[in-house]
């Protein structure tokens, strides 16, 4: 069911049909190694070059001894949009926390929710996963199931009692996807979002 050019955005399974394990090359996974080294530094509370070098050695050693299926990084990173995404995320979490607290305290048993299907535009496993992660972290919604073939998320959304609320929730999730693609999406998907929303990304068009 996959189109040929979507293949490179999918995370390969650990073993291919012949039974050979895929190994990520250093060029594919250096950003993850850098993260691992930062974790090492944080744990030791010591970011001196010597300690970081030792951490890098251990990172390489661990990833060679215990390989995981390679993570396909989109190869694009916009730090400004990442920063904006982070600020937006904090604001959204704060607002939604208040909302869910209100539901817990005053609405309780009368809360009605929906299971919503949200088809995403992206074909990248990483983006689908990150969208699911972000929306689960924002109170009021979490992912129940995923259809990988069509990049569809099935999520539970609290306090949706009519069609309007469901549609609003759906467009909200697609807005998360838009922000994530702007921050870390691959070049093609970034251009597609740009074409859809205009060069300034300011206008959120109705789907």
């Amino acid at each position, binding site marked *: 069911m996959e189109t040929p050019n979507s293949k490179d955005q999918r995370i390969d399974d650990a073993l291919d049909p012949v039974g050979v394990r895929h190994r990520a090359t250093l060029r594919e996974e250096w950003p993850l190694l850098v993260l691992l080294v930062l974790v090492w530094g944080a744990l030791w509370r010591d970011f001196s070059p010597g300690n970081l070098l030792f951490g890098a050695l251990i990172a390489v050693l661990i990833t060679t001894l215990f390989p995981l299926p390679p993570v396909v990084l989109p190869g694009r990173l916009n730090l400004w949009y990442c920063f904006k995404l982070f600020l937006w995320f904090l604001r959204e979490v704060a607002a939604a926390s208040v909302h869910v607290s209100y539901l817990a305290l005053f609405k309780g048993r009368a809360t009605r929710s929906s299971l919503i299907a949200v088809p995403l535009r992206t074909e990248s496993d990483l983006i689908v996963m990150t969208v699911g992660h972000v929306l*689960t972290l924002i109170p009021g919604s979490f*992912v*129940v199931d995923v259809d990988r073939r069509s990049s569809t998320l099935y999520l539970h959304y609290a306090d949706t009692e009519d069609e309007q609320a*469901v549609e609003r929730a759906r467009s909200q999730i697609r807005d998360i996807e838009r922000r994530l693609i702007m921050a870390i999406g691959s070049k093609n998907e970034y251009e597609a979002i740009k074409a859809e929303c205009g060069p300034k990304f300011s206008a959120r068009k109705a789907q």
Partner: protein
Amino acid sequence: MDAFLDVLAAVFLIIGCLLSLVAGIGLMTFPDLLTRLHAATKPQVLGFLLIFIALAIHLRSWAVVPVLALAWGMQLLTAPVSAHMIGRSGYRTKHVSHKSIYSDELAEAIRAVEAEQRHDQGPPPQQQ
């Protein structure tokens, strides 16, 4: 300045703890498994962040910030996974109360797939 920072830390700590308290209350008051999961998994994000900020302010040390950021980051990475796993298995083992659900598009999708599978396996039973 010191007093101000102490008050700030105290305020953050209390708000963070209140969020956890509300989550506990939500566990009691929400109607079914999936809605309760919202209460069970969410306060970590904001509540933990506030408590970590309060801790960093209280300790007056930049050295703990990476550790706290790491702890928060790990929370962010793991909390959704557990919510997803519990929600998914809860849904699949039919522990979802349909009284508290307005619309269920996952059930529609599952029905569609099942119908397709029946179609693939052979001709549908003849109806008279």
